[in-house]
């Protein structure tokens, strides 16, 4: 086997694959090393139970960057995103629900059932968020400038950014300032009063973070989730044909089409460093593969504390990475169903089951779920975001059967009463199913199999530290030029030839691909 390449990408998650495709496209002989038997990292589809395919971890695609789709010509490699058409939010007793879908006026009428005032302001809110997402989207394509240097490139970057944001009108600037600092709940309460609407909107602000809707800073996470765009439509969440693993397969094909090579079942144990420069990697089996360029798509703790000797790095970086907050807080429950379950508030099968069902009846319920987690317990009544992928893509389950994907907040990585055990995991799974039962009364009768994943499982399976789906909290102290650490936000590391390209870098997590693309482009810039 050939053991010399121009570039090695550690980790075959979506960012690693994007990076590899860009490196190969630039003519670099590129190798992707993936520890597991399949590519995708946290965006994989696996047949967990015979005949039932699950998007095991991540489940929707909304943030994926359109320029990557364009530049890598992903549609030619099989990119197929099926829209999630609606969001249904059952009330606490499950008897009623708020239903929002593509039919704008029907959505407004449904909101008005809960509050006329909310229906009146809904458009204004949507318009504002649209502008905000559009304005902030600008940062997704730039390398964060360092505000503390006088380097001309940084100064230009700062001036460009100032010019961009000062182009917003006054009210928009104020909303932006509020989005950067407020809690999601306070932010949406500026517009709305009815519980299901406030809760379901705020829920986007807590996904993947160890914060509650009343925690300041969650409005930014809300915005982060609004930045998704598919075919130019904001806040359109989609499902990739074949699950998020389907997207990873598409990316792998695109990378291979450019000439990249992908090796699965090949874990990396160390990055080789000689005289401050990387020379390649050592595999788990002891083999060495050499390359002048090595990109890590793993999280910052793996990238800096495990793959290299901390002694090879400056103390300030090691300290900063150790402090980098990576609390895992999300769980996942995958259910194989004998038949389609029925909603109490909308009996029968129908397109309403092809969208998301957001188990966010009111703000207090979500906030209390967070209260449980912050003291080290999994939520007794968690927030659950449900989709039924087999309603969108029938290939996911055997005919007549269904799969259900439940994303859950909160399941803290560290429990106060000692490590996660099988009993605790099942108890957590039971709590999730109980929540589902409040909306789907027959759910317990239709479950054939159940897979429960805690952050510890996510860490064990994907390697992401603490199972944090964003590779590190998305808060102001860990964003932009501070992600993952001050002075190291431009994808470079103190080791020449060694680069970062994972979600722990700007602009952060979600199936976005931006860190992979920007990391690869920076590496290519230096390599000439």
């Amino acid at each position, binding site marked *: 086997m050939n053991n010399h390449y121009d570039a090695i990408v550690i980790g075959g998650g979506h960012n690693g694959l994007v990076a590899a495709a860009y490196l190969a496209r630039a003519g670099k002989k590129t190798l992707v090393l993936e520890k597991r038997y399949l590519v995708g990292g946290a965006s994989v589809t696996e047949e967990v139970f015979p005949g039932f395919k699950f998007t095991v971890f991540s489940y929707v695609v909304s943030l994926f960057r359109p320029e990557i789709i364009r530049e890598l010509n992903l549609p030619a490699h099989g990119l197929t995103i099926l829209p999630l058409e609606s969001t249904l939010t059952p009330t606490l007793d499950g008897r009623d629900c708020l239903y929002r879908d593509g039919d704008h006026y029907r959505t407004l009428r449904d909101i008005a059932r809960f509050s006329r005032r909310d229906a009146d302001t809904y458009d204004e809110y949507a318009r504002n968020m649209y502008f905000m997402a559009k304005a902030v989207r600008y940062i997704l394509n730039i390398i964060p400038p360092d505000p503390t240097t006088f380097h001309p490139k940084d100064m230009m970057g700062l001036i460009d950014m100032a010019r961009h944001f000062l182009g917003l009108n006054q009210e928009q600037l104020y909303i932006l300032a509020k989005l950067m600092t407020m809690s999601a709940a306070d932010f949406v309460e500026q517009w709305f009063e009815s519980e299901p609407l406030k809760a379901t909107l705020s829920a986007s602000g807590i996904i993947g973070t160890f914060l509650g809707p009343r925690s300041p800073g969650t409005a930014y996470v809300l915005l982060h989730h609004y930045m998704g765009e598919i075919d130019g439509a904001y806040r359109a969440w989609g499902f990739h044909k074949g699950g998020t693993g389907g997207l990873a397969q598409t990316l792998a094909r695109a990378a291979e089409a450019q000439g990249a090579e992908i090796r699965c079942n090949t874990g990396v144990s160390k990055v080789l460093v000689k005289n401050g420069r990387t020379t390649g990697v050592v595999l788990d089996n002891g083999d060495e593969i050499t390359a002048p360029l090595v990109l890590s798509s793993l999280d910052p703790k793996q990238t800096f504390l495990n793959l290299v000797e901390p002694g090879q790095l400056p103390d300030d970086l090691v300290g900063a990475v150790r402090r980098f907050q990576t609390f895992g807080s999300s769980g996942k429950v995958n259910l194989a169903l004998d038949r389609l379950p029925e909603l109490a508030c909308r009996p029968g099968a129908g397109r309403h089951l092809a969208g998301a069902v957001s188990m966010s009846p009111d703000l207090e319920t979500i906030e209390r779920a967070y209260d449980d987690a912050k003291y080290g317990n999994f939520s007794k009544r968690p927030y659950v975001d449900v989709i039924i992928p087999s309603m969108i893509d029938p290939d996911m389950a055997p005919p007549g059967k269904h799969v259900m994907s439940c994303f859950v907040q909160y399941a803290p990585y560290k429990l106060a009463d000692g490590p996660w055990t099988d009993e605790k995991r099942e108890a957590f799974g039971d709590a999730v199913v109980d929540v589902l039962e409040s909306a789907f009364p027959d759910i317990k009768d239709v479950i054939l199999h159940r897979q429960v994943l805690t952050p510890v499982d996510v860490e064990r399976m994907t390697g992401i530290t603490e199972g944090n789906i964003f590779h590190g909290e998305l808060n102001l*102290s860990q964003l932009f030029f501070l992600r993952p650490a001050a002075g190291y936000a431009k994808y470079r590391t103190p080791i020449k030839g060694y680069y970062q390209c994972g979600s722990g870098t700007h602009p952060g997590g979600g199936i976005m691909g931006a860190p992979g693309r920007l990391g690869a482009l920076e590496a290519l810039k230096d390599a000439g």
Partner: protein
Amino acid sequence: MTEHYDIIVIGGGHNGLVAAATLAQAGKRVLVVERRDTLGGAAATEEIFPGYRVDTGATDAALFQDEIIRKLDLTRHGLAFRENPALLFAPQPDGRALTIWRDEARTVADIARFSERDAARWPAFRRQVERMTGLLRGMLLLAPPDLAGLRGGDVMGWAPLALRLRRLGGDDMMELFRLLPMAAQAYLDEWFESDALKGALGGSAVVGATLGPRSAGTNLTFFYQNLGGLLNHRFVVGGIGQLSAALAGAARAAGATIRTGAGVAQILIGDGLDAAAVGVRLDSGEEIRATTVLSNADPRHTLFDLVGPQQLEPEVMRHVRNIMFRGSTARLNLVLSGLPGFAGLADNAQLGGRIRLAPSLDAIERAYDAAKYGRFSEKPYLEMYLPTLHEPAAGGHILTVNAQFAPYKLREGDWTTQGQVFADTVLDTLATVAPGIREQIVHCQIVTPLDLERVYGLAEGSIHHGQMGLEQMLVMRPIPGWSRYETPVRNLYLCGAGAHPGGGVTGAPGYNAARAVLSRVRPTF
């Protein structure tokens, strides 16, 4: 009566008095109108029990700006400070107590009883806090630039501060960017392991706010509260009311008129095309004219009640309506027959500074959790002060207790009936570290958030005239677009804690507002 003044200041709180004195010194004819009979607002010392003069609001003037003391020559008007060797005494439920002293070696030795590792880190922590607060201190006396305008003149004042930031080097600047928006808990966890130490420090992060130490941005409050030095305090001889008295003295000496018992019912608006303040109407119906009006009241009361929404654009109204007040502090004023027998007390000198009951950050967080759902804490976080240790009173001891969290808006019941229930809760909590305190009580007064609003005009009981979260600081304070003390009403300025930099006895909003008036008003009148 056809009185005419250059300036009317509504409200004789410490900021109103600072503004009045500064403007009078600049030669303006100034009138201060105060609704109550006592001056000082929430910085007053009042005889609420016979023979006992109590600081009814703030107790400490560590944040008060030295530049104002110098400019107004407050020392000559009777202002004197007292400092105590103990900064903070933190009794623990397990019977021990942690004391932070002005003397660092003594503090390190005391922390070592809780954690050797924390003790070793203390000096470096103190240095970092003082470096960061040193940077921030300069912001207090600067008006924030308007976010949307970013006019050259607005940012000019900030140039020296920016230069100072730059001189620090990139590392400290980046660290400041990282630390300000953090949750205090995340910051303190980076440094320390001892719950007792972190709890004692963490109290500073939630002052006056309905936020817990896990809330992002509380680290900014932590730094703000320590702008006068880490845990530093500076008590006013004779009580905090003497600071207000000195300010009133300085104002009068410069020619200002101060009327108490004169509440303002309305700010008079002229007949011109745009809204412009031309004076005030008192509760008595009396009208007084002035060229410029400054309001020391909170922004919502000023604009909604005193001006009236009919004078405001809908956009402005929405911003004002959206100001988050969220008062969460109740006050218990106690007179005790003797010194309370605190757990772990070895020497009465330990009680001379602040006394805090917060055994851990989680204890504060749990106390906050209740407030999120509109209940008061079952085990509130307490910050106390024993002024009679320095200035003995008629035989007994005064203990003032600030208790959090007591949300203004209760989900069940209201403060007219719940005040006594909460007072009992506070006393029960206090008894866990000071057994026998109930038997020592001679007088007891509970001041609920509703009382703070009714008596002191603090909207929703917010001691800072609006919560000091990240989203309501700097360019966003009091409302976006109006961070430079002016208001949408011409010739009406805000000079209270609702304006930049915010609450606490700093004098900064009053001083900055006065300077804004002096720099904008044409010199011809």
